[in-house]
């Protein structure tokens, strides 16, 4: 049952933008792009937040670090996007590991504030550091490629297939992230993270170095965020502090994960697939025209979030789908 759903879902995701492209509208590809980016971020956040159970409100820092690293590598050294992605991921993971290790002495809410603290410290540094462009940031000059392959290899799509190209790039990165997270879930890391979440001291008693594994978890999250940041940088063609360090890059994925089901592999995916289109629809329906600028769309969005939180706090994946379709074997949750 799950296999079939997976195949159908994959086919749908791959084929989804094609009819729209043929029609000439690119709006829905962009919506799809945003869903995929946020789903990917949610998958990443699920590692430190859902599996390791730590309150982390700071991973947007690594989104920005990834974006800046790749942008710098391209602008100053001409390094192409996919290599830049590797660079961004490595830099972010290393910085995360170094910063997080001392923070693991802090527990619970104190740790949460410390993740926010790093974010609050990085922002003004990003806004005043001349080498990386200070408040203006960096611009990635558009380079048109003659072939689709060329565009894909350097992550620079332009022209009428621009949105389509970025959609598929996002789909690839999302799929890779999903596969990696599925592997982590089943591995020793996955077991150890969840043990730390359920009872850190008991975990230490069976030999788990909680500080080390919290660092590993957070670094995985940082790596995923950085990769998404690189994708975003080449999509937006600019990297500036207010944009890439924005809190929304973590609050939206966190919300998506909670809606879908925290700690469950597909939770962030389901959540993003629900929340992003809703906010886009709200924005179009209620945020434009006579009601524009009055925030009505966000009021409705807030209400929806409140209702979901109040009536299905364990997330939508925890609804008895299995009972509604067919009984499934208990999967690692």
């Amino acid at each position, binding site marked *: 049952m799950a296999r079939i759903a997976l195949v159908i879902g994959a086919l749908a995701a791959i084929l989804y933008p094609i009819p729209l492209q043929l029609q000439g509208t690119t709006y829905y590809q962009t919506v799809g792009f945003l869903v995929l980016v946020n789903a990917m971020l949610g998958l990443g956040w699920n590692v430190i937040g859902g599996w390791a159970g730590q309150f982390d409100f700071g991973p947007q820092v690594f989104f920005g670090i990834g974006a800046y690293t790749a942008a710098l590598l391209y602008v100053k050294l001409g390094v192409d996007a996919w290599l830049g992605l590797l660079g961004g991921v490595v830099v972010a993971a290393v910085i995360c590991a170094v910063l997080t290790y001392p923070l693991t002495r802090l527990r619970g809410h104190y740790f949460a504030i410390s993740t926010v603290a790093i974010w609050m410290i990085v922002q003004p540094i990003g806004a005043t550091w001349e080498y990386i462009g200070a408040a203006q940031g960096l611009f990635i000059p558009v380079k048109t490629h003659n072939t689709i392959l060329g565009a894909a290899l350097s992550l620079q799509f332009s022209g009428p297939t621009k949105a389509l190209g970025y959609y598929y790039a996002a789909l690839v990165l999302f799929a890779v992230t999903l596969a990696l997270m599925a592997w982590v879930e089943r591995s020793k890391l996955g*077991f150890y993270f969840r043990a730390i979440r359920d009872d850190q001291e008991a975990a230490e*008693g069976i030999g788990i170095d909680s500080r080390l594994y919290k660092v590993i978890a957070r670094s995985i999250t940082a790596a995923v965020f950085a990769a998404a940041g690189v994708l975003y940088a080449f999509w937006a063609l600019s990297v500036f502090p207010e944009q890439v360090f924005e809190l929304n890059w973590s609050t939206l994925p966190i919300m998506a994960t909670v809606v879908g089901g925290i700690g469950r592999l597909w939770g962030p995916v389901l959540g993003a697939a629900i929340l992003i289109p809703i906010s886009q629809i709200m924005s179009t329906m209620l945020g434009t025209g006579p009601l524009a600028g009055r925030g009505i769309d966000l009021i409705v969005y807030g209400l929806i979030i409140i209702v979901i939180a109040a009536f299905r706090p364990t997330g939508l994946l925890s609804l008895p789908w299995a009972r509604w379709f067919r009984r499934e074997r208990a999967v690692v949750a």
Partner: protein
Amino acid sequence: MAALLRLESSTKSFGGLLANREVSLTIETGEIVGLIGPNGAGKTTLFNCITGYMHPDTGRIVFDGHDITHTRPERICHAGVARTWQVVRAFGRMTALENIVCGALQRTNRIAEARARARDLLQFTGMQGRGDMPAATLTLADKKRLEIARALATRPKLLLLDEAMSGLTPTETTAAVKLVRRIHEEMGVSICVVEHVMEVVMPLSHRVVVLDYGVKIADGAPDVVVRDEQVIRAYLGERRAHR
């Protein structure tokens, strides 16, 4: 032959409260040692110091030749000490099998191997068939069995059981005692048991150590300790001691 575990004058206080005062004891390889004493005597503090959750203010703890006085809990587990908890602490959101797998992963990196060992331990502790249940939904007796299985999965040389029988019915208690004996005989694990139930501790232990107000007041064979005047006074008060 050197003792497996040796405490040398371990002292631990919390603010004004002296929980352990210069406690010295040994546990030899192959022994089952009972650790008893009235409530608040400092037994759990001693366990916490041995397993690294606290560190003694003064004194030394040596295990298997290594000084573990200031070592973190996970390294002590690696050295071969495992424990269960007074208030049972299973990983509630994981299944019973997954709980034990976490323990087994201490000694192997391969999931398949860990799962196999976990299934063996489920069998050994009498929990076959309940492996896929979320740990939080298990009965208390099963949770305690799970904790023991999880601890055994780390292949300890010394197992510390902190009130493993509390809250169990007489039938469950008998089964638990049988399990402890099997662990000792079939796995060659040395055991230290903290217990309040005398009928359990006395027949089970080779040797009994008694704590009262943080001080060791007796250390010897069960039938000797049970007649010790200081011990009787500690448990039953002044009058009974002179019977």
